[in-house]
């Protein structure tokens, strides 16, 4: 569905993405892992057209998007929903106005129809009775849920999650992970989750990719990824993966545990 081909991005002499290639198949939840500053969030910004790559191609459903601009890129963006790291809710609006924003901007729905969609999307993320609250009145977990409801408002084909569990307590993290899984099962959307939280990664992923020094160093299903002999990846698994994933009899894990 999304194909990233040989993408490079340079900031002030530092190569953040260094010829990155990655496939995001339709209907899968791909988790992109990597150290802080390895270019995960930059990649999401390039996919959504918020940032342009220095070179390389991004294909979305057979369309090369780095050459698109104006109306064409805006039309494509309507197929993408994004949950930002900080939720990025409009603080001058209520929860209902935030969720209805895209409908208000791009459709002719009347207020009653919009309210119906807002209620439906909020119930999808297990939130009710918060329609008239302002973002400042919500907890961190609730803000993420509202951000997710807003991302779902236009029935996107792809949902991008930028560090969905960062800054949340463990209980809320588990709830958000469960929500991502439920939404994937219920809506059958393609999801891309950027995270360095390995608990979150293993609980939501149907495929995983590891980025290091601007390149993909590992790619596969969760059961495949734990058997890839890459030192950076195994360090991530060893220090972050949940206990049920850590099989100490795994020879590759043993090898890095010994170090």
């Amino acid at each position, binding site marked *: 569905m999304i194909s990233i081909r040989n993408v490079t991005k340079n900031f*002030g*002499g530092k190569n953040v993405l260094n010829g990155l290639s990655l496939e995001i198949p339709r209907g899968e939840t791909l988790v992109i892992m990597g150290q802080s500053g390895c270019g995960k969030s930059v990649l999401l*910004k390039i996919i*959504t*057209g*918020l940032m342009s790559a220095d070179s390389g191609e991004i294909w979305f459903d057979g369309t090369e998007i780095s050459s698109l601009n104006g109306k064409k890129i*805006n*039309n494509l*963006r*309507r197929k*993408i929903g*994004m949950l*930002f*790291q*900080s939720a*990025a*809710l*409009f*603080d001058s609006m209520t929860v209902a106005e935030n969720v209805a*924003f*895209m409908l208000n*901007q*791009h459709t002719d729905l009347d207020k009653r129809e919009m309210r119906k969609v807002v209620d439906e999307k909020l119930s999808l993320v297990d939130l009710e009775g918060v329609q008239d609250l302002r973002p400042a009145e919500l907890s961190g977990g609730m803000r993420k849920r509202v951000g997710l409801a*807003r991302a779902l408002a*236009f029935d996107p084909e792809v949902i991008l999650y930028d560090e969905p569990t960062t800054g949340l307590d463990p209980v809320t993290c588990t709830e958000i992970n469960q929500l991502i899984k439920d939404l994937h099962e219920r809506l059958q959307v393609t999801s891309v989750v950027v995270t360095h939280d390995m608990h979150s990664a293993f609980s939501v992923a149907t495929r995983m990719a590891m980025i290091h020094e601007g390149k993909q160093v590992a790619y596969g299903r969760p059961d495949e990824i734990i058997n890839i002999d890459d030192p950076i990846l195994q360090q991530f698994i060893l220090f972050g993966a949940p206990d049920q994933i850590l099989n100490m009899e795994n020879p590759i894990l043993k090898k890095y545990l010994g170090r």
Partner: protein
Amino acid sequence: MEQQSTLHEANGGFPDLVKIRLHKVLAEIGHAFTLFFQTLIQIFRPPFQFDLLVKQLLLIGFNSLAVVIVSGFFTGMVLGVQGYIQLKPYAVEGSVARFVCVSVVKELGPMITAFVLAGRIGASITAELSTMKVTEQIDALEVMGTNPVKYLVVPRFLACSIMLPTLTIYSTFAGIGGGFVAVVTLFDVNGSFFLLEVQKNLFVGSVLISLIKATSFGMAIAAVGCYKGFSISTAGGAEGVGIATTGSAVISLIAILVLDFVLNHVLFNILGLV
């Protein structure tokens, strides 16, 4: 490599540092003008969101009315007092009404209104937009297929361009009123004579100059406020918001003074308006 060579050049001495600084300033001016032209283009592109414009008109106009009137009134009073004191030794204190009227209409009315709005509205536009930038709200707008220039800049730009001349009319009347009150109550000047002199010296050309200046100042305040708000990086944080807001107020004030000089030259010397 590019950064290294810049540092190397910077070590070359004072002229190189000036060159780098100048390059930065020119680049910023270029970006600001790009945003300005993008705004002009977006004004004429549908959809036209009048609700956003009305909201900004109320925020910028109605909420600034009291402070603009008070500032104009006291400026007029000061002009009246100073004018009378300066003109009396030459026995032409009767011209004080003309002095107050011409100064307020052509110069101080639009200028005081613009200064008040630069501090009050320009800075608040920058603070609001830069906070939105830092908290990724502007990125969220773009991801949702909404043009941030169209949605955020156009209503503020239009509202400033419409409300500044409107408020200038109020501040000008307040200024003349202030001059009247000061001169009539503090000195031996006849009120009817003062008003008659004002009427004699109030020309359509003068009012036109005042409104042209005010509209230009309004555009400048909005353009600087929006540019400074947009130019902050996402990593700027609270400190970046503070720096951008202060920068916005300072640049707006300088822009108003420079524009005033240019407009005075163009309107009086070239077009010959009185």
